[in-house]
């Protein structure tokens, strides 16, 4: 009984929202959770933090907010979100203007377009990464010049697939 009381106290504590750079699942109060038994097909859009533990097929438009694909989440969708944390499986591209984190146990097939990327040991990823230069560190180069210099590189390494999705 005493132990139960302690647990209740812990549960009632407000859970702080995810800070940028923190490798924790989003568990703030204004968060929607798509449960493990839920299967959704279509275009999903939301204006609040979202945790996906279920199955999503389609597209996820989730600008300005945080998106977490939980360990049980199975997502086949292109994702647009402010910051993305993947702990489960994702087939699709990630478009983010913030931090993208692939945690241990994550399996991602697709391309990632972001400004910051953290890939933890144990995460599996196959695809292309394009990181926009951070203005605080360096002045961003012109996109055209950037692409040209990389095109030479792609031609040289013909043994690696350079198929672009876009």
């Amino acid at each position, binding site marked *: 009984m005493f132990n139960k009381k302690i647990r209740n106290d812990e549960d009632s504590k407000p859970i702080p929202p995810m800070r940028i*750079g923190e490798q924790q699942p989003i568990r703030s109060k204004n968060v929607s959770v798509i449960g493990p038994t839920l299967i959704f097909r279509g275009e999903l859009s939301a204006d609040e933090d979202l945790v996906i533990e279920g199955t999503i097929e389609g597209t996820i438009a989730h600008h300005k907010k945080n998106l977490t694909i939980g360990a049980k989440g199975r997502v086949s969708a292109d994702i647009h979100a402010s910051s993305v944390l993947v702990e489960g499986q994702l087939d699709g591209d990630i478009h983010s203007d913030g*931090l993208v984190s692939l945690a241990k146990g994550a399996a991602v097939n697709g391309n990632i377009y972001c400004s*910051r*990327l*953290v*890939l*933890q*040991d*144990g*995460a*599996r*990823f*196959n*695809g*292309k*990464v*394009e*990181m926009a*230069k*951070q203005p605080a560190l360096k002045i961003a180069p012109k996109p055209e010049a950037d692409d040209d*210099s*990389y095109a030479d*590189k792609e031609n040289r*390494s013909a*043994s*690696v*697939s*350079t198929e672009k999705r876009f």
Partner: protein
Amino acid sequence: MIRLRSSAEGLIIDGTLECALVHHQRHLTVSKNARVEADLQASTVVVFGHLIGDIVSEGKVLLANGSDVRGDISCAGLFIEEGAQFKGQIDMGVGATDANVGYS
């Protein structure tokens, strides 16, 4: 100007290096001030500095905070720290622990 330091643990590249391929059986490190234009092949690769080239590793690859890598990475395990800049293709094979990774 290039400095190569070889130790029992592996090879450390420090300085500017342009060549086709740097191969080491065990461990390759691109140090913080290094600017390397070359493909790297080693069991494990750690990049702190600037690299333009592909990385092929049977083991693990680490892109540390402050590193800037342009090229394709083929490895069994990859760790990218926050603050690392990367542009290219990543191929981690079918299984993360599978060592059967390399140019095909």
